[in-house]
């Protein structure tokens, strides 16, 4: 048998007391897509960072096409033909879409940029990804997270790589864009490129991947062909037990209206949104990237300017400022956990309690012991994997960071939860736990506005689902009146069908 395109053997990595990787082996063949799966904090991203030269391994060796490969930096990895899309967005916000896509691989002669050539290549990949409307001149900090993720993907595609790693590329993409991406991946496969694909969406994985490798606590616990394995077997490998219910249902009944929006319009999106949210209700919001779902939540919460319209919480219309909204009982999980959601250099405990420090306060002074107890409870409940609650958030795995963000609104005990892609990057087992917590909250009389690009979870968890398109709410139906197809069709068409 010929050498595989990529072989990693005996890779180990420790971060202080954390064994992120223990003696992991992995193989990828040319023209094959390998699924790398595992719980949050299993070591997937770390393994791929070792491959891309961003993290030096403690031990282990790698070979590309039989040649020893030991990248000293991301630069040498690139030279060896390894491209990577990192889980956390890695964009230069002050640069344009084009400059970001071409970063590190500018075409130029004698150091002078050849803009015409570059422009053409950028247009080509954006076409491939199905977003020809994305202007190469736009500054990246003007884009929504979803669009930014597209830019990130485009960056890997313009490179002439032999191996491409996708670390949760679709966590903020709508189904629509996911399919486009899969089309691109299929084409890449045909040209003989090896691909590693990390995702927590097992259905996606089945659709696009050929083989799988499962990591648990830094060890490779199984690998093989995807055709010969069932979803529940994979889950069992990942979690070490079986997860009986992916979407646990907790009965809850809607009560009176707590949040009512009337004719709410922001500076660009949303446009003219009228919605009512009841106690004990989970209202889903679906839509394509750029539909304005994020802006809707931000307008409600007072983070974005509102042009016209009102937001009423109960009977009152509080001043639109986050501090007032929190006082009125609202809580928000941001879709951008790196830029906005979390204070990266602060501890888990701090991040979890910033929005509600009152219980631990006597005349301005903090009662740290009481807080420590509360925080460890939440960490246990959400299975946050960390060394201690004083660990700073930046060292957590992506999924665990997301859990801290969710823990904050839960700890805040908000009456109305505004969740923007809350399960982004969270593993199957914990997702189930989060759905259950959402259900319990609803049962306890809280209201939840749930924005997600993952239609399956919306339809399974929500009581009603609203579909947004181009800033407007097109239609609201109880979730059993929607199918994924009809919802998608409405989102694309922009009008109810």
């Amino acid at each position, binding site marked *: 048998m010929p050498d595989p395109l990529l072989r990693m053997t005996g890779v180990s990595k420790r*971060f*202080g*007391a*954390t064994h992120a990787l223990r003696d992991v082996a992995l193989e990828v063949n040319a023209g094959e897509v390998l699924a790398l799966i595992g719980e949050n904090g299993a070591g997937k991203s770390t393994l791929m*960072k070792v491959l891309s*030269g*961003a*993290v*030096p391994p403690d031990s282990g060796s790698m070979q590309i096409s039989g040649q020893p490969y030991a990248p*000293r*930096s*991301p*630069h040498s990895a690139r030279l060896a033909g390894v491209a990577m899309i990192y889980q956390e967005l890695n964009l230069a916000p002050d640069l344009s879409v084009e400059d970001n896509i071409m970063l590190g691989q500018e075409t130029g002669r004698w150091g002078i940029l050849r803009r015409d050539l570059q422009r053409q290549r950028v247009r080509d990949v954006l076409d491939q990804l199905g977003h020809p409307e994305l202007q190469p001149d736009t500054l990246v900090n003007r884009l929504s997270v979803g669009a930014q993720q597209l830019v990130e993907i485009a960056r890997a595609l313009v490179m002439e790589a032999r191996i491409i790693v996708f670390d949760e590329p679709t966590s903020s993409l709508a189904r629509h864009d996911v399919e486009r991406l899969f089309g691109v991946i299929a084409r890449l496969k045909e040209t003989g490129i090896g691909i590693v694909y990390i995702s927590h969406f097992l259905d996606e994985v089945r659709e696009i991947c050929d083989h799988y490798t499962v990591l648990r606590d830094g060890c490779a616990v199984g690998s093989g062909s995807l055709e010969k394995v069932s979803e529940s077997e994979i889950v069992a490998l990942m979690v070490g037990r079986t997860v009986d219910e992916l979407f646990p249902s907790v009965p809850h009944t809607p009560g009176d209206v707590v949040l009512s929006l009337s004719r709410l319009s922001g500076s660009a999106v949303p446009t003219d949104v009228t919605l009512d949210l009841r106690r004990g209700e989970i209202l889903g919001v679906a839509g394509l990237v750029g539909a304005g779902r994020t802006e809707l939540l931000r307008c409600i919460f007072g*983070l974005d300017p509102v042009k016209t319209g009102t937001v009423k919480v109960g009977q009152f219309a509080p001043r639109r400022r*986050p*501090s007032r*909204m*929190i*006082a009125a009982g609202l809580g*928000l999980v*941001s879709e951008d956990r790196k*830029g*906005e*959601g*979390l*204070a*990266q*250099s*602060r501890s888990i405990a*701090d*991040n979890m309690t*910033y*929005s509600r*420090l009152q219980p631990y*306060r006597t005349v*301005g*002074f*903090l009662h*740290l012991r009481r807080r420590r107890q509360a925080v460890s409870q939440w960490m246990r409940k959400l299975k946050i994997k960390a*060394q*201690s609650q*004083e*660990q*700073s958030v*930046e*060292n957590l795995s992506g999924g665990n960071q997301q859990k801290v963000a969710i823990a*904050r609104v839960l700890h805040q005990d908000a009456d109305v939860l505004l969740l923007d892609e809350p399960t982004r990057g969270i593993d199957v087992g914990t997702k189930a736990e989060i759905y259950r917590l959402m259900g319990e909250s609803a049962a306890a009389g809280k209201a939840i506005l749930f924005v997600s690009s993952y239609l399956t979870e919306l339809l399974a968890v929500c009581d009603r689902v609203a579909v947004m398109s181009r800033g407007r709410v097109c239609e609201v139906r109880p979730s059993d009146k929607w199918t994924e197809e009809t919802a998608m069709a409405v989102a694309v068409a922009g009008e109810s069908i």
Partner: protein
Amino acid sequence: MSSETNTTTTPEPQLLATSRGNALLNVIGPFLALAVVYFFFGITDATQEDGGTFLTPRNNRAVAIPTATVAVAAMGMTLIIIAGGIDLSAGTALALCATVLAWCLKEGASPTLAILAAVGTGCLTGLINGVLISALRVVPFIVTLGTMTIFLGVAKIIAKETTVRPDRTTQIPEWLRGFLSLREQYLFPGKWFVPWSGEVGADASWFRRTAIWVAESLRLPVGVWLVIVLAILLALVLRYTVFGRYVFALGSNESTARLCGINVAWNKIAIYTLSGFFVGIAGIYQFSRLSVGNPTSGIGLELRIIAAVVIGGGSLSGGRGTVVGTLTGAAIMAVIASGCTQLGLSNPVQDIILGVIIVVAVTIDQIRQRRLAA
């Protein structure tokens, strides 16, 4: 190069299982650099022909005193830098406070009133900075660059473009003159504090001599003790109050702070005002040392104040900094200045040594932090 690539991107986690051991090392850490610099000069001085004075208690006091002014102002700056800001106006604001104090005394105001006026001026300068930064949403660097020259101008107007000299004997109270004085009668505790004082000859035991040395070194003017009290208070505020947490949150990620319902504008105003309070106190320190108010005596001081914070481990990108670190940062600079004079080094050489030590101290601190982390 290869070592260059990994560390900044991926912050390593902490090794020590208990965060307590870590905290301890973090507190001791900054002292290490100070100790190295101190003993470097001490030993070099002792081996010199006419040396041996550097390690004396008197010199320890003489170093503590110029440290004090910068240290007090730097405490306020620590707050601001942790919160992700910067204050270039600290130097001239400090001189403004000293000028106001001098002017009040000269105009015959009571010392209490004069001191209240100085501290009030300090708070006011901070308040102005805070309000401008919050209201105009202009970066602190610019706002304080502007107020830097504004405060200078105001101080010059108050001083009628010269130096304000209240009468030393009649208008400046005794305690204020002794506030940062090295003279025996102003030291606290008094001579009684030193054990075996007087009875110890050259043949005394090592232990006795050390005890005397320590006790003598601890006899300091009131102003220095006040620095220590203020430092403890500020450290407690940073660690154990809600406000303290908010300061760190703001510096770490302002958007997150806003998202969590922290009133960013108010907290910024509070932070700058509190820092202005420290600047006001530092103005009193400067005045008590100079017994005159000179509007221009704060020019360039802001860089030394900021340097103290940063040498002490504060990060200009916000979210990191400690009060102990800041104090040692200020002390390191004073030790270098004193050591160079005592070794008879010329000014250019002193400049170069100061520069080298700043870079080396911070580099070592950083390596230590990385070691700790790895």
